[in-house]
Every structure is written in structure tokens, then in C-alpha cells.
């Protein structure tokens, strides 16, 4: 009986949706933990705690109180998620030990494009108009297709909920002359509502190595504009459109053989989404969605002595995607979700001969049901047909069993994949200084013949005919098993995860050139796994105090390296005695850029009588290897290699509201001024800021 009541409460809140939830949220007298609604996990509205798979939700309140500006900052404070720079300095998010290449980033349910060496830089996204961020961990290709191999981050932007004209204007000034301004307004006029968001961010950047030419991060300036409108002609139909524009200008300056090179780097990004929601009957709803995005990055540099052009690069990517989804509710608890869509992608890039395009069609089906009152099962699968690689079928099943009101077990197993990207297939790049060449897989044969005809190839390292078999997509199987305990004041989640990833695409030498350099190309090379335990606690010991803590234990290793270790084929050299010794399995640390331990603790404290909130947030990451240091005699990361030291960053901020209209925020990031210039280029020292916001 109790279960029934519990389920019906969950379900009712589902029906009332957003409205009901936001009233709960505003009720600050309640000392209870909130249970928010999440949409990315199932593509239907679901209560966060009812979901059978590992999901994290970051609400607006936390984003605002934490005083973050860009998405990467707030993501970096979540359990098991870190913002990392790869060895080339490109930044991206890592989740459950899976790198940015394999994490799909959605903005209001549709994907962002424009990755650098596979990394999607989340500092492109201003958090100023984000309602909530939904994070699904583990393979999610059963709903989202390619790139959702390791998980999905969905950024949900604000929707207007008030009939009067509402707006906020804010300005923040901080260290490094960082200026961030926001102007936000929204209104509901009968059947029409709209919102407009504008953001400008500029900074002088910083320099960790003042003795070298150029700064570590050069001055930049960017603008974000986003407009949403929604029109509800009748109860059954809702038509939405949203457009986003992002523009960034950044200076470039560096030294090349004692010549000063200067220039600038521009990013222009467009996202346009049109959506119609049609409630055909009480059981059947259909969504029609059209999405178009373009990401254009261009860089031009000149040699300062004679103003000649030093380099000119362009990266121009477009995605066009129509999709139709339907939800059919057989009964109150059973929902069938289906969708079909079509992706048309195009990339024009300086290192490509011609613009290249991909074309793929997909269909997915998901059934969400309760075979028993306390058992929820979500089973789904997706089929992707692609013009350039073999078709993919990605099933997933998730089960949740409520043992009592408070304790549940959840488990999910799913497949994920990532299609070879444009670079891996079409790259054609020769380093003008050193002389090596990197070729995309699909153009390798033709390009090698060209080089051979020019007499530049001395020998082939692989059987060229084998390159005719298409490159396989990288694929994964993810398993999660978790237990959660939830009361009004305390919620504890423990989750074990394991992701087995196959056919990772990496470069290898395919031929040697007569200048002594190599020709590299991409191939399916490694099998890796990431495995660990995630632990999350939310605790409200007092009405006004909320403590969040999270820990992740991670093991991320390469299967081929493990095999070599088993065969006793890996050695190291003692750097003092030059003595060689055999490396054992236990001396293998694992993949690069993975920390064994990450920990975060956050405390938010409200003083209602002062209209003030304080918070302190600490994030720890244990030691990790940054690049394959071969100085120790091998190409794996073993415990004898040098590591980047573990570190903790502490951020604090305080917000005070005046007369309900004004709010003042003061804060410090990296309070203890931790720096490691040699290894971590995105770690700035201590920074202070002050922000003022006016609501109207």
C-alpha cells in the first residue's frame, strides 16, 4: 500500500510537471531535499530520484550561488566530472574516466558541434540563462546516438513562467580585468511567451610564463545572444523557436624562430531550433524538431617584421537535423517513446582537400514501464545508419527496484558508440617545420600514392590494401549498479561503474618518408576500460545548511598494455643506475590524465534574516600522468614515471539580496592560490570578483 502511495506521488508530480516543482523550490521554509524533474534521461519528464540510471542534476540555484560564469567551471565541481586539458592544451570534460571526445553535449536537447582534437570546450557556454544541467553517466547511444559513448550533458535554458515583463541585469568585475555582463528578460503575453538573453565576457587573459613571447591565455572578448519564443495557439499545440549566437575574438601572439607572430582567432557559432509539440490525444503526443547549427573558427596570423601571412586556418562545421518524436502512454505508468531523425553534417577545413559531408538516419524506441509497483524498467534501442561507416545498433536496459520507500537499487547496461570524426577520415596535414604527415583514414591510400609518386616514401609499414576496409566506430558497453538511500534530510548514492571501450581510434605509423619522418594515419587500436565507484551525499543537517559531498575512485587502463605486462614485455630503466627491470601489472598506473581519486565537498548556508547565502566549495584531484613520459624507458604510465601532483582548489562566495531587487555577490576562486604552471596551463592563481544584479 505504501508503495502505491509513493508511486502515485511520484507520478502526480510528473503530471503537474514544472509548475508544481517550482513552487516547492521557492518554498524556502522546507528543510527537505528537492526532487527535480529531469528530461534527458528518457526524453520524457521524470522525477530525478525515480530514474533507474545514474543522473546528476545541477539546479540554477547552485549555479548562481557558486558564482560561476562558464559551464566548465560548474561542471568541474561535480562528482566524477573534471575539466581537463590534454597534452595539446585543449580543454574538455572527463566523466567516469571517459574523455571529452565521447561525451555528447546538448543544448536544450540538441547537440553542439565544433570540437578541437575531439574536445568540446565548455567555456563557450555562458551559464547566465541556464535553468538546469542534466548529466547522464554511462553509454546513452540508445537515445542519442554517436558521441554518447560515455555519457550526455544536457544544458536546459530558462523558459519564461511569468506574465509580467521580468528581467535581470548584472555586471561582474574580477581579477584579470574579467568583465561579465548579462541582460535577461522574459514575458508571457497571452498565448505567446518570449525570452531574450545577452552576455558579454571579456578578460585580459593571463601569463604563466612572463619570459616568453605571448601570454598563456591571450586577451579575449565574447558575446552570447539567445532568444526563445513559444506560441501556444491552443491547449494541444505549442510552437517554439530558439536561436543562439556566440562570437569570440581572441588575440594570438607567439615566437617562431625569433620572429614575432601576431594575429587573431575568431569563433562564430549559430544554433537554431524550431520545435512543435502536438498533443494529439491524452495518450499520444508528438514533437517535431528542426535543428541547424554552424560553428566557424578561423585564425589568421602574420609575421610582424614584414607583415607577410604566417598561417591561415579555417574550421567550418554545419549540422542539420530534423527529428520527430512521439510519446504514447498506454496507461499512467507505461510510456512508449519513439523517434526518427536525419543528420546531415558538413565540415570545411584548411587541412582538407574539399569540404566533406556525412549523412545518417536513425530511429529509436524506448519503453518505460512498471511491471510491479516497485519495479521500473526502461528498455530501449536505437539504430543508426551512416554514409561512411557501418550501421550501429545500440540497446540499453535500466532497472530500478524500490526495496523500501527509502532504499532503491538501480542498474543499467547500455551500448554506446562514436563514429569516426571528419579529422580521422579526411585529415591531410604535413608539419612544415618537422616534416611528418598525418592522413585521415579514408584519404590515406590516395595520399600515399601521391607522396610515393613524388618520391617521398621510403617504405610502407602496413599492408596498404588493408586500408580499404572501413574504419570501425569506437564502441562501448557500460554497466552501472547503484544503491540509493533517501530521506527528507539525507540522500546517499553509491554507484559502481564499468565501461569497456573497444576499437579506440588512434594514430600509427603507416609509412616512412625519405626525410626520416613518419606518415601517420588513424586506425582502430586500443581497447580500454574505466571502472570505479562513485559516492554522493546530500545532507541537510539544518534548515539553512546544505552539504554536498562526492567521491570517485577510478581505474582506467589499456587492455593491450595489460596484455603486454602479462607477457612480461614492458620494462623500465632506473634513472640513476640505468639498470633495466621488468614492470609488473601492479606498477602500471593506467591511462593518462586520469586521477585515481577525485573528491568534492560543498557547503551552502542561508541566513534568511539577512537575505544572505554563503558557500564554500572544495575540489580535490589526486596525482595523474600528463603525457607518455618515455624517459623512463617505456611508453606506458607506470608508478616510476613523473606525475602531476594532486591538488585541491577552494572556491568561496557570498550573496546578499537587498530590497528583493538587488543582489550583491563577492567571491574568490582558487582561494589558496594553487598553481602548477609547468603542467596545468588552465590553472590560474587566486581570483577575486564582485557582482551586482538588479531584477526588474
Amino acid at each position, binding site marked *: 500500500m505504501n508503495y502505491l502511495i509513493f508511486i502515485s506521488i511520484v507520478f502526480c508530480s510528473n503530471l503537474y510537471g514544472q509548475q508544481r516543482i517550482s513552487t516547492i523550490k521557492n518554498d524556502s521554509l522546507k528543510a527537505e531535499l528537492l526532487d527535480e524533474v529531469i528530461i534527458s534521461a528518457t526524453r520524457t519528464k521524470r522525477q530525478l530520484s525515480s530514474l533507474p540510471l545514474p543522473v546528476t542534476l545541477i539546479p540554477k540555484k547552485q549555479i548562481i550561488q557558486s558564482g560561476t560564469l562558464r559551464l566548465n567551471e560548474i561542471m568541474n565541481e561535480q562528482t566524477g566530472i573534471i575539466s581537463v586539458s590534454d597534452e595539446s592544451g585543449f580543454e574538455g570534460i572527463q566523466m567516469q574516466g571517459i574523455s571529452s571526445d565521447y561525451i555528447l553535449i546538448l543544448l536544450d536537447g540538441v547537440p553542439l558541434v565544433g570540437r578541437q582534437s575531439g574536445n568540446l570546450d565548455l567555456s563557450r557556454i555562458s551559464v547566465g540563462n541556464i535553468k538546469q544541467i542534466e548529466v547522464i553517466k554511462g553509454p546513452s547511444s540508445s537515445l542519442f546516438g554517436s558521441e554518447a559513448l560515455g555519457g550526455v550533458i544536457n544544458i536546459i535554458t530558462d523558459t519564461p513562467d511569468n506574465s509580467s515583463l521580468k528581467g535581470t541585469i548584472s555586471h561582474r568585475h574580477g581579477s584579470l580585468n574579467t568583465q561579465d555582463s548579462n541582460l535577461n528578460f522574459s514575458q508571457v503575453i497571452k498565448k505567446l511567451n518570449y525570452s531574450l538573453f545577452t552576455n558579454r565576457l571579456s578578460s585580459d587573459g593571463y601569463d604563466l610564463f612572463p619570459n616568453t613571447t605571448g601570454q598563456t591565455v591571450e586577451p579575449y572578448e565574447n558575446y552570447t545572444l539567445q532568444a526563445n519564443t513559444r506560441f501556444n495557439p491552443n491547449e494541444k499545440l505549442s510552437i517554439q523557436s530558439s536561436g543562439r549566437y556566440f562570437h569570440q575574438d581572441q588575440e594570438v601572439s607567439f615566437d617562431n624562430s625569433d620572429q614575432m607572430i601576431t594575429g587573431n582567432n575568431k569563433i562564430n557559432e549559430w544554433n537554431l531550433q524550431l520545435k512543435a509539440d502536438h498533443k494529439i490525444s491524452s495518450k499520444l503526443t508528438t514533437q517535431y524538431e528542426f535543428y541547424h547549427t554552424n560553428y566557424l573558427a578561423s585564425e589568421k596570423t602574420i609575421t610582424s617584421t614584414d607583415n607577410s601571412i604566417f598561417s591561415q586556418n579555417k574550421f567550418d562545421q554545419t549540422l542539420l537535423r530534423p527529428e520527430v518524436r512521439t510519446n504514447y502512454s498506454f496507461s499512467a505508468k507505461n510510456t512508449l517513446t519513439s523517434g526518427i531523425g536525419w543528420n546531415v553534417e558538413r565540415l570545411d577545413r584548411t587541412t582538407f582537400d574539399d569540404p566533406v559531408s556525412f549523412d545518417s538516419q536513425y530511429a529509436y524506441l524506448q519503453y518505460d514501464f512498471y511491471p510491479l509497483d516497485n519495479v521500473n524498467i526502461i528498455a530501449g534501442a536505437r539504430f543508426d545508419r551512416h554514409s561512411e561507416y557501418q550501421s550501429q545498433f545500440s540497446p540499453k536496459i535500466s532497472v530500478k527496484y524500490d526495496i523500501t520507500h527509502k532504499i532503491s537499487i538501480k542498474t543499467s547496461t547500455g551500448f554506446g558508440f562514436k563514429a569516426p570524426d571528419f579529422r580521422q577520415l579526411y585529415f591531410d596535414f604535413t608539419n612544415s617545420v618537422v616534416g611528418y604527415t598525418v592522413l585521415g583514414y579514408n584519404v590515406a591510400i590516395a595520399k600515399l600514392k601521391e607522396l610515393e609518386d613524388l618520391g617521398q616514401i621510403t617504405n610502407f609499414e602496413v599492408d596498404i590494401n588493408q586500408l580499404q576496409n572501413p574504419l570501425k566506430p569506437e564502441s562501448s558497453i557500460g554497466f552501472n549498479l547503484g544503491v540509493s538511500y533517501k530521506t527528507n534530510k539525507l540522500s546517499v548514492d553509491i554507484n559502481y561503474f564499468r565501461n569497456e571501450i573497444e576499437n579506440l581510434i588512434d594514430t600509427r605509423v603507416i609509412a616512412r618518408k625519405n626525410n626520416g619522418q613518419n606518415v601517420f594515419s588513424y586506425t582502430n587500436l586500443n581497447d580500454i576500460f574505466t571502472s570505479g565507484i562513485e559516492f554522493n551525499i546530500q545532507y541537510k543537517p539544518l534548515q539553512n545548511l546544505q552539504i554536498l559531498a562526492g567521491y570517485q575512485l577510478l581505474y582506467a587502463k589499456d587492455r593491450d598494455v595489460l596484455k603486454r605486462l602479462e607477457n612480461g614485455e614492458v620494462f623500465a630503466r632506473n634513472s640513476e643506475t640505468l639498470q633495466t627491470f621488468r614492470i609488473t601489472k601492479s606498477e602500471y598506473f593506467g591511462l593518462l590524465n586520469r586521477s585515481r581519486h577525485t573528491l568534492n565537498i560543498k557547503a551552502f548556508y542561508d541566513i534568511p534574516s539577512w537575505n544572505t547565502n554563503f558557500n564554500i566549495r572544495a575540489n580535490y584531484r589526486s596525482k595523474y600522468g600528463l*603525457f*607518455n613520459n618515455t624517459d623512463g624507458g617505456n611508453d606506458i604510465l607506470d608508478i616510476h614515471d613523473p606525475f602531476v601532483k594532486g591538488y585541491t582548489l577552494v572556491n568561496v562566495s557570498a550573496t546578499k539580496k537587498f530590497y528583493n531587487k538587488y543582489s550583491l555577490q563577492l567571491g574568490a576562486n582558487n582561494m589558496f592560490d594553487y598553481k602548477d604552471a609547468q603542467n596545468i596551463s588552465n590553472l590560474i592563481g587566486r581570483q577575486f570578483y564582485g557582482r551586482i544584479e538588479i531584477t526588474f
Partner: protein
Amino acid sequence: MKTTKLITVIISVTLFTACSSDDDSGNIIEIPQQIVSDKAENIAAPQTGGQGEPTGGEFTKFDFESGSVTTSNTEWDIAFRGTTIAINGGTATGTNDEPERNGNVSVAIVTGTFAEIAKAPAATEFYQDQNQVFAIPTGSGNGWYNYNFMTNTVSPIAGKVFVFRTRNNTYAKIEILSYYKDAPANPDGNIDEARFYTFNYSYNPNPEDTNLD
């Protein structure tokens, strides 16, 4: 046990070498049955060109029988120039200024610690230089070294032992320890002087005897 045995060999050989060098006979090894284990230090291997330019310059030749560098055009087994190692067997590779192959040297690349490679592998494991291809492959991660672009350092791959069948049909094994002058601990490619080989070697002077320990 093996290590003890090796150490004994090294010690006895070292003592012996020290004594014999006094009489200036020019032939260090007096007892032919004995396997010689020694360390060759600071063998300079200069090179011109590189960095995208064609490489050139004379190779530095080494002779296992005498255990020393030689300028002889016939009595040599292996030769060094920069990170490239040529052997006196097979055909010209086509690189500039390379020595003429007039011996029948071949090389096998064996994985293991230097001490545990007690016997030369089967004949099928041995290779010779040929047109465009060195028997010890060139390039980072291919042959004997890794190049670390972050530290600009060339480091010998640990556990790579090169077994040679020499021009005298005898067997020898080497393990390269360092590419930098005086084999410093933790070399820095930007500071330490490169193109100086230091390697351990064992030489069995008995023809056709594959024992190396």
C-alpha cells in the same frame, strides 16, 4: 643465480682487462673461450642535417672483436650516426655518407633484460640492412629509442636487447643505456650533449657459439 654469475664474469673480465692493457698487446682478449662483458662509453656519433633536412656525416664504427671504435673500412660490426645504427651486413640503405657493407653482420631484436638473454635467437630472427631499411628501425618507438617531444629527450627503450651475428660469425649482445655524454641520470635533452652512446655488451669470441651468458 644468473646475476651472480654475470657479476662474476664482469668482475673477472674487468680485472683481466685491467691487467692485460699494460702489456700493450693490442688484443685485449687473451683467452678465446671467455665471454667478454663490458660497457662501451661515450661513443660519439655526430651527424649533419636533420630537422627535416637530409642527414649526413660519417658513421662511427665499432668492432666487437677489439671492443672499440675503429676507422677500418672492413673490420667493423656496427656503426652509429645520430640515432641511426647501421650494421656491416646487407646492402646500402641509400642514406648519405654510409659505410660500405663488406661483412655479413645481422641483428636480432630481443625483448628482455640484458642479463636474461643467455642465447642468441634462431637464425630466422636475424635481419640485415637493405635498400631504404635499417635492420634496427629508425624513428621514435620503432627501434631502440623513444623520443619525448615534451622534454626533447631521446631515451633507449628499456628491455630491448640487440643480438648480433658479427662479421666473424660470432655472437654479441648489446643494451643501449644512454644517448647523452657521460650517461647522466635523468638526462635533459635541452642541456645534456646528445649523440654519445653508452651501452653494455657481451661478446662470445667462439664462432658459431650462441651462448651469451
